[in-house]
């Protein structure tokens, strides 16, 4: 019981202190640029829990979700294909190296030109940005498959798709998920700025509108929404990763303890 209170204290202590400081600072010397905590909460509820939820927030999240899922699935499939074939790896390496290094936001003007400001173009941008970490990590994870595991598979006649399913994919999973972890924030960045660059709705668009109209509390509430989405995405990822890689974390813990 006492332990639970201590844990809770540690979790809420610093955030509470920060909020109090913020409240004191904005109350003592009100600033045009920073709303008080109370103002922010009121604005947050008023702004986002209405039609904007359906017009701005959910479509943005949907585009992000679809884009990221396509990127992950395509990245893993393509990565398996390339990673298992040495020549294909050599063939694609410089090209992939270039696209990985290309800062994805520069693709926005290009795709805008080619496809116009549609929903699918925004999804496509998220896919094009988020696929590289997954793809390259999958290639590396597959390439680094343990030779003893591979021989074990062969000696038991486990080959082709079964080998991919039972040996290659699970053994590359830690690396693949490390790639997914890198690609999620990139997908989120592209979700926001594709809407800022060319859109008439969406979170990114609304936040920029608020800023242009000097609707400061609304702007801050938008930043808060994005923060909450980022936090939620990270939490979901952590949960999924813990589940998929339970064996891996257990193994690492044991190794570190030794």
């Amino acid at each position, binding site marked *: 019981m006492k332990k639970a209170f201590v844990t809770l204290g540690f979790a809420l202590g610093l955030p509470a202190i920060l909020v109090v400081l913020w409240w004191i600072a904005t109350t003592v010397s009100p600033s045009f640029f920073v709303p008080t905590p109370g103002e922010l909460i009121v604005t947050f509820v008023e702004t986002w829990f209405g039609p904007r939820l359906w017009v701005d927030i959910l479509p943005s999240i949907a585009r992000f979700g679809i884009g990221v899922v396509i990127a992950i699935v395509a990245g893993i499939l393509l990565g398996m294909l390339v990673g298992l074939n040495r020549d294909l790896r050599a063939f694609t390496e410089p090209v992939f190296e270039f696209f990985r290094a290309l800062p994805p936001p520069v693709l926005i003007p290009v795709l805008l030109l080619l496809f116009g400001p549609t929903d699918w173009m925004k999804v496509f941008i998220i896919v094009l940005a988020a696929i590289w970490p997954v793809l390259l990590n999958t290639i590396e994870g597959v390439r680094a498959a343990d030779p*003893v595991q591979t*021989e074990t598979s062969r*000696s*038991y006649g486990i080959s082709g798709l079964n080998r991919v399913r039972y040996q290659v994919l699970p053994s590359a999973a830690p690396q693949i998920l490390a790639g997914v972890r890198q690609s999620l924030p990139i997908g989120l960045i592209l979700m926001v700025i594709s809407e800022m660059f060319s859109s008439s709705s969406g979170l990114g668009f609304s936040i920029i509108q608020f800023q242009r109209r000097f609707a400061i509390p609304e702007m801050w509430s938008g930043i808060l929404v994005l923060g909450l989405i980022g936090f939620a995405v990270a939490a979901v990822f952590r949960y999924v990763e813990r589940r998929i890689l339970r064996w891996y974390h*257990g*193994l690492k813990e*044991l190794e570190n303890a030794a």
Partner: protein
Amino acid sequence: MLHDTPVPIDTVSHGRTLPAEETLLSVRNLKKVYSTDGGDIEAVRDLTFDLGKNELTCLVGPSGSGKTTLLKCIAGLLAPTSGEVVLDGKVVTAPPKKMAVVFQEYGRSLFPWLRVADNVELPLKNAGVPKARRTELVEEALANVGLDHVPRSYPWQLSGGMQQRVAIARAIAYQPEVLLMDEPFAAVDAQTRADLEDLVRKVRKTLGLSVLFVTHDIDESVYLGERVIMLSSSPTVVQEDLVVDLPEERDQLETRSMPRFTELRHHVYEQIQLAKRGFRPDVAATK
């Protein structure tokens, strides 16, 4: 390469051959040369021997005698340069269904993402064995190696000896006719090792398997085997093929204290020392 004179094949340095009906596995004039940029490495020169049905044969040789190469050729994991391996009348070109391998590196050979029972089950699942039969075979195999209490554990949660038991269970659940073991106990402590040795003998007896057991441990080879094939140093030929005429029931204390055990051990030891010093039966025969 002064001594590279042709060696009369079939006169020396071959192991015992058996009549076809008693033979399960035959190795005929097996040769393996690795070709690399830095030149060819001749690992195995010329090996011929037969493995009888329901027989436990140990292969022993000095470090660097191409034991692992030979085993991989037999397992169908490596293609021989010339010669052939025949299992049940069929030439081995790929890992055969009737064969299972237990590797030395148990930690890497078991899949860490699968629980013990799932590891044992995987080859059966891959082979399309129906679920009910699979469960039965897995339970049986785990009981046979004394691990029926940990099916839900992950292999890495177990000790080294227990992990190797899981690998053995996986092999026997696959229902092979031949079990190949590549220095399986090289990485476990002495006490566990003795237990595992007895386990191998017990399992072989209950299941009626043929076992080819590769080791560099002379004691182990004499204690376990009904036959010990000694290998020369690389490029490998058979140094000697010895029948171990110890009673069938082996016991860690009793067997090891028998005068005959000491004699055999002594003999094998001498041969291995000879091999280490570079004595080669094929070269000796031409002199």
